[in-house]
């Protein structure tokens, strides 16, 4: 029994619904952009500069690094942590829903050594995300960094990320706590100690499926929230970085 979260018709329905909201939100933004009639670009696209800028300033966020290492660490952790977890979830979804459980690769991933890789992967990127969120919370609400002006959408975005992160760890801990301890569980280097705590204090036990549903619901609502919030920059900012690099080339 590996007790990974299984998809249900309800989850599929919610996911489809979420994607529709996401697409409508994106369309609403593009609808407004298309009202602009002036010339967007004054030069031909320079793909080399665009790729270089995307690597340096979008993926590595070099400009931020030069400005402030703490801010860079925060953003870098949130960006890569979220991408790492998205890759983890996407991989699990493909393995669970599109591949036969009898395949040797499926067996390797869910019952063999592959699960150790998955456990390390999930906890590592979860931790990276959490570090980024923690820095963001400290900067914004404790140290009140001079440049920040907090409005409700800033708080909403950060709370979404925080709850996704916390419920993710909690899901993993409850999953492991529901099983007898086995040495491979140590690869969940955050989930395993939390699971031990839950085993020692049974009052902390929550039904694994309940917490994983909460985690899932928060995650999909967050996905739908993206185009209606400042989080939309995750799609748009890299485009602007690339276009600026191309225009600047000439």
């Amino acid at each position, binding site marked *: 029994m590996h007790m990974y979260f299984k998809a249900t018709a309800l989850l599929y329905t919610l996911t489809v619904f979420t994607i529709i909201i996401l697409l409508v939100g994106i369309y*609403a933004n593009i*609808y407004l952009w298309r*009202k602009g009639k002036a010339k967007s670009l*004054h030069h031909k696209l320079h793909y080399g500069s665009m790729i270089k800028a995307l690597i340096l300033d979008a993926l590595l966020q070099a400009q931020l690094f030069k400005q402030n290492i703490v801010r860079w660490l925060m953003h870098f952790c949130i960006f890569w942590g979220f991408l790492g977890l998205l890759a983890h979830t996407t991989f699990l979804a493909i393995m669970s829903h599109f591949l036969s459980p009898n395949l040797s690769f499926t067996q390797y991933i869910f019952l063999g050594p592959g699960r150790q890789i998955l456990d390390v992967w999930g906890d590592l990127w979860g931790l990276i995300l959490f570090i980024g969120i923690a820095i963001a919370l400290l900067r914004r609400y404790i140290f009140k960094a001079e440049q920040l002006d907090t409005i409700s959408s800033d708080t909403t975005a950060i709370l979404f990320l925080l709850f996704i992160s916390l419920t993710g760890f909690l899901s993993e801990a409850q999953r492991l706590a529901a099983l007898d301890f086995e040495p491979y569980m140590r690869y969940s280097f955050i989930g395993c100690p939390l699971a031990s705590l839950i085993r020692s204090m049974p009052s902390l036990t929550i039904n694994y499926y309940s917490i994983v549903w909460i985690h899932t619901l928060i995650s999909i609502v967050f996905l739908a929230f993206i185009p209606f919030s*400042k989080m939309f*920059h995750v799609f748009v900012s890299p*485009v602007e*970085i690339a276009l600026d690099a191309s225009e600047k080339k000439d």
Partner: protein
Amino acid sequence: MEDQDKKLEKTETAENTPDDTKAPIINIDNLSMRQLMELDACTRCGECSLWCPAYEQDKKEGITPRGRAKAFKDIIKAQHGLWAKIFGRPKVTKEKLDQFVADLYECSTCRQCYEVCPVKIDTVELWENIRRSIVDAGCGPLEPQKNLIQSVKSYDNPWGQPRSSRTRWAKVAKRKKKIAGEPKDITRKKADVLYFVGCTGAYDVNVEPVAINTVKILDAAGTDFGTLGTKEKCCGSVLLRMGDNEYDRIAKENIKQFNDLGFTTMITSCAGCFKTIKHDYPKTGKLNFEVKHTLEFIIDLIESGKLKLKNEVKMKVTYHDPCHLGRHSSVYDAPRKLLNLIPGIELIEMERTRENSRCCGAGGGLKSGYPDIQNKISQTRIKEAEETGATELVSACPFCYQGLQVGIQALDSKLTMRDITDLVVMAIEDKTEDSIQ
């Protein structure tokens, strides 16, 4: 679909008439798709607010680039967004729009926000095009700025001076024997180089030595040059920065006039004219000549041996990067190179230089719209210059010259404001009494 939208806008505009509290519809045709996308690209990180010279003096969130982007996005989403189309437009109050307009113009368009923006939003072009939309809607610019614009439209210069006075500086300089003769009129007799004097250099008596210096230098090097005389018109920078669509007409007319004259190089001592003609004009029409700032041309003259810097100029100077020459045009090394070529000059850099140079606050209509803020911005820059221990504050823009003088006077500073051409003249001539003091 767009026709329907225009009908809706027309209906709304008609509906606006009796409701004084409702803002007019802002036409966003002036913006590009990319610029509207840029409003969504802002991460609200606030780096811009740490560097904005206006915000440094007036701590209002609304004037930060982040604040302006959000406020404008809220307004146009309410007026043009998909939800407005489906469910009807929520009311945007005139008070809200007026506040946005006031905040939009509390900006010197110095481009510092672009330099520090992690996602590289092309802020200044965005503000300029938003200003166009605001002017189109009859909501801008600010009252004091309207005089400058009206003057450009009526007299081809922002200083309310008659066209016939444009060459007064040359006539007076010739009479006082500061220059050998008035520059030739390039519209009558061809020349290789056009010296575009610019309105500030031509009309402001405090700054006109920049033009006189330039003529002296060009004469000393034996350059075949001319000016447009009284036929020179404002480059239109004032209109472009403040969002007036008349800029397009002026730019087209100037481009045609320039291209028809057949000169190979245009030089100008004004960073604002330089930026406008070199970088903004090509968006309107093709130029068949090269555009250089005077100081770049002077370096060419020195390096080709046509101009000899024979005198030692023993001065401790600090250099102020004009925004339109630096951040807007990336000319950072040339002025420093020229200063180092002048014998005896000791250049001491300020704490903030080059891409992060503080603005003098004079550009973008800020000086006319918010003179108190400009004064404070200028004072901050002057204090920074004083900290270097230099005795001379050097720049390469008549507008910065005016803007920084405000701070020097307010602080009763011992610094002497100089245009870079002033130092070159000292190095080529024995007498220096004509220098701008």
